[in-house]
């Protein structure tokens, strides 16, 4: 992908996450603050919509997630899961918040797996997580 296309894709990705991602995060936080599972689910749905829009942009520009995006996404996901687990272990979570968290992380995980599966197929999706070693048979071929 050429530089102008890469920049245009970047502008779109930034716009999507600034508008939808932050709104979704706001709703999730609002749901946690008010113990309102409906608000948290709405936030989760908006975050999923942002993820969907990001994937659509990727498809338009015929590209997957960049390394930076994947790293940032995984780090943010990991940090949120960590905070959630710590809060759960310390007993600071209500049942509504517990369910909200499970829904958020579960849906994000399922969504990501579904994306990999549809993009690369079941076997190749699994292969994305470990370095592919070229066998001696393949080398010989």
């Amino acid at each position, binding site marked *: 992908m050429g530089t102008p296309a890469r920049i*245009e894709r970047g*502008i779109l990705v*930034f*716009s999507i996450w*600034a*508008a939808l991602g*932050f*709104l979704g995060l706001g709703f999730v*936080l609002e749901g946690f603050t008010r113990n309102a599972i409906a608000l948290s689910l709405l936030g989760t749905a908006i975050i999923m919509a942002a993820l969907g829009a990001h994937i659509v942009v990727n498809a338009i520009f015929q590209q997957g997630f960049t390394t930076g995006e994947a790293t940032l996404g995984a780090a943010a996901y990991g940090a949120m899961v960590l905070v959630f687990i710590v809060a759960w272990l310390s007993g600071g979570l209500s049942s509504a918040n517990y369910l909200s968290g499970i829904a958020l992380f579960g849906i994000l995980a399922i969504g990501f797996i579904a994306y990999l599966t549809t993009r690369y197929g079941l076997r190749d999706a699994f292969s994305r997580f470990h370095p592919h070693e070229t066998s001696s048979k393949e080398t010989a071929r």
Partner: protein
Amino acid sequence: MTGVAAQIWLPLSLLFYTAVALYWARIAARENRDYETYFSAAHSLSSWIVAMLMAGASVSCWFLLGGSAEIGQHGFSAPALLQAGIALALPGTIFFKRMWFVCQRLRLSSQAELFRSYYQSDFLVVVSTVIAILFAIAFAGLQMRALSHIISTLTGGEASPLVVSMVLSLVMFGYVAIGGMRAVAYLGVFQTVLLCAAMVGFAGYALIDLGGFGALNSRLLALASDPNGAPLFSVSGVIHFTAGLGRADASGSPDTAMMGFGLTLAFMGFQASPLASKIVLSANNARGFAAGQTWVMAGVFGGLIVFGIAIMGAAMLVEPGLSVPNIFMTLEKVSPWFMAWLLIGAIAGVQLVSALALLVAGESLVRNVYKPYFHATLSRRDTVNLTRVVVGILALASVLMQSLTPIALSALGSVVLPMSFQLWAPLLGVTWLRWITRPAAATGVAFGLAGVILTEPLGYEILSFFGLELPWGRWPWTIHSAAWGMAANLVVVLIISAITNREAFGEEAQEVRRFLQSALRVSGRAQALRSVAWAAILIWLFLAVGPGVEFGNFAFGVPGAGRGWILGMPSLWAWSALFWVLGVGLLWFLAYKLEMASPVTAVIDAYEPRPRLHLNQGQRERERLRALVITGAVGFGLAVLIAFSFGR
């Protein structure tokens, strides 16, 4: 929500926004490579970026802050405000495609250069520059002032409006100086999306707070059934022959159909401005203008105005606590993250138009006025650096005026759009009406500007300073200054074009005429539709924003005696929504069927003018500078003398 959370989210969001702005400025600077592409992004912006940037800059934060407050104060008595999406998109549909082709042929990159090449008029160059400066200092400054006051209140007064305004301007100056037009464009898309999101967010919050669309309309119906509230839901006649606002004999509501018509004309000023021209001339092709103007500007943004802004205004009408500043205050306490999210949208809307205006004003002053008249040997690198300095000075001037001279800022800000609308005549001369001659275009604009200034507080204040008293106030006969200016402009253009030589144009103008005739010849099918188009435009103008808007007072029911509105919403609101839909259809018809903005792909070779002898300009430049200083000193002296003798 705790106060700590409220204190964290505001600076955190501002920090995030600043980081994003500087990140994209860096990318833009790297793309620019050197100073050669600072002003126009190497004319390489994609169609969709141009469409988004144009729509965002046209709407800016004016509708969010000013438009909603206008409806909240005057109700639906000025329905022309709701047709702004169409009014803003119409000039672009008419001008952009041809302007882009002409400038591509002559290798021009700004409106001032276009006027210099086509009309060879120094006056039009200066007018274009002055309008760009007014946009940068006054128009954007007014929005920045309103926003900085809101942010200052949100910080509990810990940051004064002046400090807030300076910080926001510094961020803006940073990305304009670093990345030039490319940074303005890249960040502009991001800012446009955030602005849209904020408009939807505010409208959504207002609806949720009031209990939904039905509940909002129930309260509007109760207000309309009250004799005191009823005038808020109707246009008060076609015209009132009053002396204007601020005059003792002015009586009745100024919200007449003619006032709405004039307001629509003022909206049409933005896309005739040098700011819009800059965006158009930075595009890498002319294929996106039709879609951008029809679907993005008129469709999406027109819809946001006719529903989103109208909902915000209507909510303010029934519940004054739902004004934009009040919503910020409430959200700061209950949901600081939403407050921060909406605030970033508002900041984005202001900075979008402000950054563009600063860049264009800086370029116009340095590249189109200073360099050609006073320093022809200025290198490209020095031109860019000097522009950066001028951008900084203009930003500082705007910040200081916001704080020190808000009344002067308001007076200047109110004339920008009507003044810009006066550029319609010279732009029509370049693109469509070949019979508009050079003296006619320049003199018409001069009379148009005089018409605008003399029917606004600015003219009143200037003349009052010299001891002269105008017999009328603001907007006499309830006709907006944009309409007064255009009336004067049009009369002068018609008369002078009729009595001056229509062939007395320079080489470039002759080439433009030949080029438009050959490259953009309108097809026979489109020519056959011209009469239909004229009829459709006139009918739409008459019914949507002209005298016919009075039908909207009762077309969808008049409340009273247990009766409601037929569609459950105020009749004028429904009327406006209907004509917004028809307006989008009209623009589609003009853009595509009449081929005014339809996509055209053509390779355009640069026009090679005949070689000219370049004389040493040094002596003439020094003489010009001396003349300027002497004229300025004499003018200043005379002004002081007159003010001292007759002024108040």
